[in-house]
């Protein structure tokens, strides 16, 4: 399930919806990304996330499908916010459930690595010295690429 939204989400409620009343889930993996108050040694006052409505949902669905293809997953949840956020605010949640812990943990890692570089979001950071667009990091591309190698499951 994919949700692209401006409003905040409650981690407990979201994760409960993936496991409550289910007796086939062995493991729940989860990652939550938050706005940090520092970037490049500068104090950040806010971060504004811009996205490409329509394409964002398509890309996230394609990434979810890729994860389901690779791991035996039960539920997949991706929530990504856009709009103006402040330090400490939640940006993104990815969570997966599986009978097996390896599948849950690895697929979460994959989902966040891929959406970093393949979902059409752009971050604008505001600090005392003005606004600047966050540059893509080579490390994020490398993290995404390492899932493309045909590793045994």
């Amino acid at each position, binding site marked *: 399930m994919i949700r692209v939204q401006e409003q905040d989400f409650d981690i407990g409620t979201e994760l409960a919806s993936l496991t409550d009343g289910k007796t086939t889930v062995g493991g729940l993996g989860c990652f939550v990304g938050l706005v940090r108050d520092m970037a490049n040694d500068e104090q950040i006052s806010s971060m504004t996330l811009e*996205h490409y409505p*329509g*394409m964002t949902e*398509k890309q996230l669905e394609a990434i979810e499908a890729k994860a389901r293809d690779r791991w035996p997953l039960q539920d997949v949840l991706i929530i990504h916010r856009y709009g103006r956020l402040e330090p400490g605010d939640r940006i993104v949640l990815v969570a997966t459930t599986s009978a097996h812990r390896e599948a849950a943990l690895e697929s979460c890692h994959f989902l966040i690595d891929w959406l*970093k570089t393949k979902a*059409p*979001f*752009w971050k604008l950071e505001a600090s005392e010295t003005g606004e600047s*667009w966050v540059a*893509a990091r080579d490390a994020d591309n490398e993290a995404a690429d390492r899932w493309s190698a045909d590793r045994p499951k």
Partner: protein
Amino acid sequence: MQLLYFGWVRTRIGIGRETLELPPDIADVKSLVEWLKQRGDGYREALEDLTVIRVAVNQEMVDLDAEIAPGDEVALFPPMTGG
């Protein structure tokens, strides 16, 4: 053709979306980008380094040599920074 700009491509060009009538000889992304660069300083600044320009046609990622047709929705933007 429907054109969309995001991130610093948008802020340099100055608008997020426009509809343009293209000359008939523009049939791929690369020639579209070259044509746009003639339209003003903002466009030239935004599209000057093609290694950091990403393109989606009808909401699918494509390469610079992808073909385009008049009814397409073409988006130009910097590398994505989600998550």
